[in-house]
């Protein structure tokens, strides 16, 4: 019983609403990837798109987060025209899954639940997720697919990973708190003088 419900939490319920939420998530991902960068200096931008799988994960589970992230990344490539880099898309997908694990440790944004405890686990998940996705998955895939120098690839993807951790925590946590508060059920409201 317990096992089955965990599996359900991971997979998410694939009804029309979930499908559309993933589509909207992928669209947001694509838009933020192409137009939503924060300028660091002249031509280098920090993308805020990685926030989106976190939100989808918190509402629908990690597998929808993974799908959103992978599709979103592919779409970003399609509208941006940078060509397809599956080493990065898959890395992003893996990361999307890990940062989308929120409901598994009890953070339910839809029901207004996101506490300090969840934030701590979330930060750990972000760090581990990025280390795994961009320290292991992407460099290996890059080497296999495109035959790169492992050290250079590793440094490049790790830079991306660190930028992600920065965005996921500095922007992600306030957003999660804000969204949870906006969804919280309110009782006993009284007018103040």
């Amino acid at each position: 019983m317990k096992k089955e419900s965990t599996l359900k939490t991971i997979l998410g319920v694939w009804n029309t609403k979930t499908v559309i939420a993933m589509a909207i998530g992928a669209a947001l991902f694509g838009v933020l990837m192409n137009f939503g960068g924060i300028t660091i200096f002249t031509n280098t931008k920090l993308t805020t798109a990685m926030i989106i799988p976190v939100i989808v994960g918190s509402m629908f589970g990690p597998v929808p987060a993974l799908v959103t992230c992978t599709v979103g990344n592919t779409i970003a490539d399609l509208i941006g025209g940078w060509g397809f880099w599956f080493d990065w898309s898959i890395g992003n997908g893996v990361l999307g899954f890990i940062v989308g694990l929120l409901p598994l440790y009890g953070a339910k944004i839809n029901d207004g639940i996101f506490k300090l405890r969840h934030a701590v686990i979330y930060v750990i998940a972000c760090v581990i997720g990025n280390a795994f996705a961009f320290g292991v998955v992407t460099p290996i895939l890059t080497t296999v697919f495109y035959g790169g120098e492992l050290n250079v690839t590793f440094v490049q993807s790790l830079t991306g990973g660190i930028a992600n951790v920065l965005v996921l925590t500095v922007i992600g946590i306030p957003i999660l708190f804000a969204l949870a508060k906006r969804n919280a059920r309110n009782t006993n409201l009284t007018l103040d003088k």
Partner: protein
Amino acid sequence: MKKPIIEFKDFGFQYKSQREATLHNINLTVYEGEKVLILGPSGSGKSTLANCINGLNPFSYEGKITGSLKIAGMETKDASIFAISKNVGTVLQDSDAQFVGLSVGEDIAFALENESVPRQKMIPKVLKASKIVEMEKYLLHVPYELSGGQKQKVSLAGVIHDEVRLLIFDEPLAALDPKTGMYAVDLIDRIHRESNKTVLIIEHRLEDVLYRHVDRIVLMNEGNIVFDDVPDKLLVSGLLSRYGIREPLYITALRYAGCELTEDTGIADVYHMNLEPYREKLLEKEKMKVERYEQEPGEEILRVSEVSFAYGREEVLKNVSFTIRKGEKVSVVGKNGAGKSTMAKLLSGIHRPAKGNIYIKGEDYRNYSIKEIGERIGYVMQNPNQMIVKDIIREEVELALILRGKSREEMDDKVKKTLQMCGLYGMRNWPVSAVSYGQKKRITIASMLVLEPEIIILDEPTAGQDYYHYTEIMNFLDDLNRKYGITILFITHDMHLAIEYTDRAIVFSEGELVADSPVYKVLSDDKVIEKANLKQTSLYELAHRIGSDPENYIEQFIAYERMIKENGRSTAD
């Protein structure tokens, strides 16, 4: 022999998330080929009723059904939404969300795709459906190239397949400008007559729906049916004001004139009704002296001088000039794409004029940044959810001050003042999620007012609201204007709003300013009305038919209505 298509028997519905039932004890039968209007304020259960018929309840929104509902003889409790959708086509209020294809053709084909109809069979069906709504030339157009009215036509084409016997229109007029709304009502009527399908319209804009004949009106309130009969009976019954439905303007005018309304005069149709019993009183009323509302001109605070603007090569504003004085309430009207939102963007400094200039209190506004203009001109977007960031009301209102690095004392002082102005002070520590749409609207207005701007611009402040909430929002804005002298610019296509709440209308058409005059003048000028996709109000028709001068008549009506609003009926007479 009439065959029933919808049969409610002692029907009730309770949403899973709610403690009480939304629909109680509904008994209603609609016969094949009928055209019925379901009328009611928001929260009356009219949308719930529609969603029970098309199967969204309980498929999409879980809940408990009591009693029985049969659609074309099929008990809905046991049927799936897919089985129901074979018989019932629904056009939703939000035509943008309903447009799920990437082109017109794809969207019309969507239901067929889900049925796995082969493409060769799909193409003629799509063409046929598109011809019914006169969109056959647009099959390869993408949604962004279409107007709201066109999107709605596509939505209709997408559900009008051969087997469908019942069409439900859920608030079809909510997002349309007056003239497009008129066309929509006409189109629904034509399809009803030609296809002999049963039509159900859910609306609260009674006057607009009555532009064409309806067989029956079902009035709902708090989950009950309170009236179910022909339109004429409803209009003379006095139930409309009791249940917060706006009565048609010409009916209001008849009442103001002290006419005794009777249902045998064909009163539901202003174009053909028998006016003889009322003519004398109407003419008598018109002679009565009413104090004309004159506004004292304040100082000039905004001057738009020969402004032109283009997106790329496409010129969207051509040589526009007007001025706004302190304390004015002005409506900016015109059809979609006429340039009114571009004007708003220019005023708030988001875009800057290509030619000409804008002066705020005589100061060249090119010297100001967007942020600095924001301190002088507040722009309130249509959708409050696109503006609200914080979760506590007070935090939301003080945000603009925090971002400007103001001191705590100054902030507390200004925030308190603003919250009091907006009637939010008691709720200042409430979470935003706990308040209604109208209150959210207030919050967004407060978050702009806190900067003490000279003018606030409101984009469609009442879009999608029923009469009750509309009145609530507009009275609040009226208060702000009267008590605190806030100058307000309304961007709207709601002519009722313009009549009731503003003194002057600036009318745009094809990027040009085609009129800048008192509302009653605009509303009696055929040329302007034509150009701006506005619609003659029923007052115009009424005046015309009793042989009065429309301009004079409308002006009189507005002045009288204002007096009633301020002093109550007895003193006005």
